[in-house]
């Protein structure tokens, strides 16, 4: 259950970014979590919501993109999604392939809105 720590790190990055952009409010943080990253998206969302509740970031949305385990075939250069740990190239049957995706634990982007003081 280290997703809370991951959620904290995301919020830390959002806050750092926001401090550098006075007048802008963060609305959405988009993260990319690889299948091999050992992070459960539901638990991450739960932790994220628990940490932002009743804070200035309560309205911040979290978008999670799950990145598949992708391999690159050393013979025919096909990039493919590995299903059920079957690593062989589905096109040419080559066994020697290299992992090129699935370990991601990244913040892709942040959506920000210009701050407008309410008239109320």
């Amino acid at each position, binding site marked *: 259950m280290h997703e809370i720590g991951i959620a904290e790190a995301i919020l830390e990055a959002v806050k750092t970014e926001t401090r550098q952009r006075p007048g802008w409010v963060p609305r959405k943080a988009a993260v990319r979590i690889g299948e*091999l990253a050992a992070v459960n998206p539901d638990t991450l969302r739960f932790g994220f919501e628990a940490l932002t509740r009743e804070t200035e970031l309560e309205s911040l949305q979290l978008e999670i993109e799950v990145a598949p385990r992708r391999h690159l075939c050393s013979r025919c250069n096909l990039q493919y999604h590995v299903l059920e740990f079957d*690593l062989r190239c589905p096109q040419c049957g080559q066994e020697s392939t290299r992992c090129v995706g699935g370990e991601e634990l990244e913040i892709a*982007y942040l959506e920000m809105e210009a701050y407008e003081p309410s008239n109320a």
Partner: protein
Amino acid sequence: MNRVTLEKKILSENDRIAGDLRNRLAESGTLCVNLISSPGSGKTTLLERTLDRLPRNYRVAVLTGDIQTENDANRLKRFGFPVKQITTGGTCHLDARMVERNLTDWTLDHLDFLFIENVGNLVCPASYDLGEAAKVVLLSVSEGEDKPLKYPAIFFKSELVIITKTDLLPYVPFNLVAAEENTRRVHPGSEIMRLSCINDDGVEGWLDWLQKRKSAKVELSYRT
């Protein structure tokens, strides 16, 4: 709405500290091994054998992580090497900052091996780089042979998989061949060892692996 592209690692702060540690360890020629397994797979027992049997000219230190208690450090201190317990107080893994903080009393130049015994857990330690040269995962025969398929991340990231407690094989329904096949499915390049600390099978192989890995590491750091 304005989109700010970050493309930044979520654990970039951890990775930065781990990167610094890795550089320092490479400069001092210290081989750092991060031992990972479920609770009760034999990490501490393997370390006891290691401290007891490694040639005495090596200088060794151990950081051992648990949620509570100093029990493991007390077990390991008997061998006369510096040992420090990291109690995480609830956190299910070690992170690079905990390692960095607990290394301050030691001079890395005086160490040949630094062993880090992670908190017993096959999930979270996979996400945290500690600056180690190699992750080593232990799987005991009293667990299921499908552990590599259930926890692929850690088996994928570990250079060496040690199947422990093989002295129990006559008494447990563990399929050794299937365990090794499952490991290779997840990580075709992994090295696999079978070991028992009770009847000593495989312990020499592990000590050899450490010493070979250590010389490889030294050559590598000379090159840079």
